[in-house]
């Protein structure tokens, strides 16, 4: 709950490069994967993540693709997050696949330390939450 920022503010590019490396090397807890869509994009805006459906839920064994768009104000503002794979989940708009910050507190209460990895991990956790664990899901492979 302390909110004094870290002494060094990592600029956007470095942050994203760092995340890129983590994604490519699979550093982290290994249950989510992410990378840049277009290696040529110098602004590193468009990203894709995958979430492997958590065990003991309807999502088990499924692979969900999530599109993340990091705008130029990225680490200060959250990226916009949109499910590419169809999923039935509370925080996800059923028309567009967009993750609604109002129902996904992590985005609403964004902090600079959060990364795309934390978003994906948190989404995965959300899938396993009692509210979402048992929701009937659209056929695998369908997309928004």
């Amino acid at each position: 709950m302390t909110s004094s920022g870290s002494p060094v503010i990592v600029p956007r590019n470095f942050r994203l490069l760092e995340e890129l490396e983590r994604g490519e090397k699979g550093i982290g807890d290994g249950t989510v994967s992410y990378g840049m869509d277009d290696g040529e994009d110098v602004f590193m805006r468009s990203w894709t993540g995958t979430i492997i459906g958590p065990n003991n839920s309807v999502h088990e064994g499924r692979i969900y693709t999530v599109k993340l768009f990091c705008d130029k104000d990225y680490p200060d503002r959250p990226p916009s997050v949109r499910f590419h794979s169809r999923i039935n989940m509370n925080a996800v708009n059923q028309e567009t696949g967009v993750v609604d910050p109002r129902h996904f507190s992590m985005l609403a209460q964004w902090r600079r330390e959060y990364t795309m990895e934390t978003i994906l991990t948190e989404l995965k956790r959300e899938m396993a939450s009692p509210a979402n664990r048992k929701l009937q899901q659209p056929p695998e492979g369908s997309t928004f």
Partner: protein
Amino acid sequence: MGGEPDGAGPTAGAEAGAAEGPKTVHVRCSNGTKFSLEVDLAITVGALKVMLAERCDIPADQQRLIYKGRVLKDDNSLDSYGLQHDHTVHLVRGAPASVSAAPPSGTIPASTPGPALGGLSQTPPGLQQTPGSNPAGLGAFGFPNFGLGAGAGAGAGAGGFGMGLQDIQQVQQQLMQNPNLMREMMNMPAVQNLMNNPDLMRSIIMSNPQMRDIIDRNPDLAHILNDPGTLRQTLDAARNPELMREMMRNTDRAMSNIEASPEGFNMLRRMYETVQEPLLNAATMGNEAGGDLTGNPFAALLGGQNTAQTQGQQIPSINLSNTTNATTGTAGAGATTAVPNTAPLPNPWNPNPTAGAGAGAGATPQTGATPLAGAGLTGLRGSAGLGGLAGLGLPDFGAGGGGPFGVDPAMMQQMLQNPAIMQMMQGLLQNPQYINQVMNMQPHLRSLLSSNPQIREMMQSPDFIRQISSPESLQQMLQMQQAVLGQLQGRQPTGGTPGQPGGTPAANAALPDLNSLLSMFGGLGSTFPTNTTEVNTIPPEQLYEAQLSQLQDMGFYDTQENIRALAASGGNVHAAVERLLSHPG
């Protein structure tokens, strides 16, 4: 590993592969295992899968490879995805390409843990693995209080276990509204035992759906709540008035510091909106839900801690020693829960003797025709439950029912002091089978125990039983009985003769004296110095001597007014001053 990629070369990119040479690629399985292999990046994904099939028991057509957040397609080459040396590819078992999603777990050979057995779920334990909504989980916490609750409760005597169990809701409500109770409770060794068990505490917290919701949504809070240190500190604070005061002061200071800095106030507001509000809501929601009051004992805690920012939330209403009695109590008036509490936060931990006494004397609406003695007895009986004596002592105590014990307390005491009887009781208590039997006999207790292994353990722990059944404890309990009975006799507003309380409906006379009862039980097995019974008799002038003179020095000369303010604020001078200033005259 060092071998040439034998199966790798069949595809078109032979020349490119020769030029680049094999690269090391790490493969991370969904069950947490990892391995590396050397591949030519020009090969197709499909070829890689064939190689992987030899390493990981997942047939190629069930493999899903993920890299940079994308599922790799069989027909594309590895380098078309930008795969490079030292990069990691995730491997997941998916449904076979043709067959529609069959649950994979069944087909996995036992030798390798498949995804189903996964080390995948790396979420902090206790978050998702909430003990499936465990209504009695709260009971675990409340359990030691049931007895107290019985004393506190409406005085509606139920048999067996001394009605406490049926009045959990009421008890919890009272607990929430009476920090004093809370503190006394915390002081009890049994409760402390519970507190020191972080797992149990967590399960208690998690058994509140609102709380769980918040935690699910807010990982930071989860960390805090999962940290046994924090928990203990919180509880310690709740127990220790000094610490509590210190913490409050610190918080206040920090708040004012923050507020002084630019943007600080906004930050505070945000914090309040995002963290505290939902927390408090969770804590108090049970209350508002009315009927479904499986509310949690943390309401008072949380309310007490988040002092500075609380606006109109349920600050523990300090002097409501007993909600039902609140209306009769003189002091409690200022602290009704419904109204936004703008009054300064009085010191919740100061026992408020006058209020207590007032409530005690103010004979509340009589609950039917409960005989006076019955009330005293059931209270006692329930309280005994606190120690675990409950079911056990019951056959003896319980025999008293409303009758014999009420008629002649002295006789009962004599009986209890009789060495033979004591021996017998100890024998009973030390016989685990008997205890088990008793425990199983009580449906309430049984359900409580079955949902709370810790309690069962506690109840079966020889140490605990020994402690409870030690002659000293019994002696103490006797004294308590005497005290209670003495009070009953003293308080009886109708002036009925103590010996024949049978028809006297002054059921609640003893109940408001809960505080004293509690402190007495707090003394059981621990050294709990304060004796509220005594305090109750001290006139306020004397009790608040120091504070009164302070107020005098400050220029408040109306002694009666000062006393009233002090009483209402639990002896806290600052709060009293605020009160005096806000209610002139």
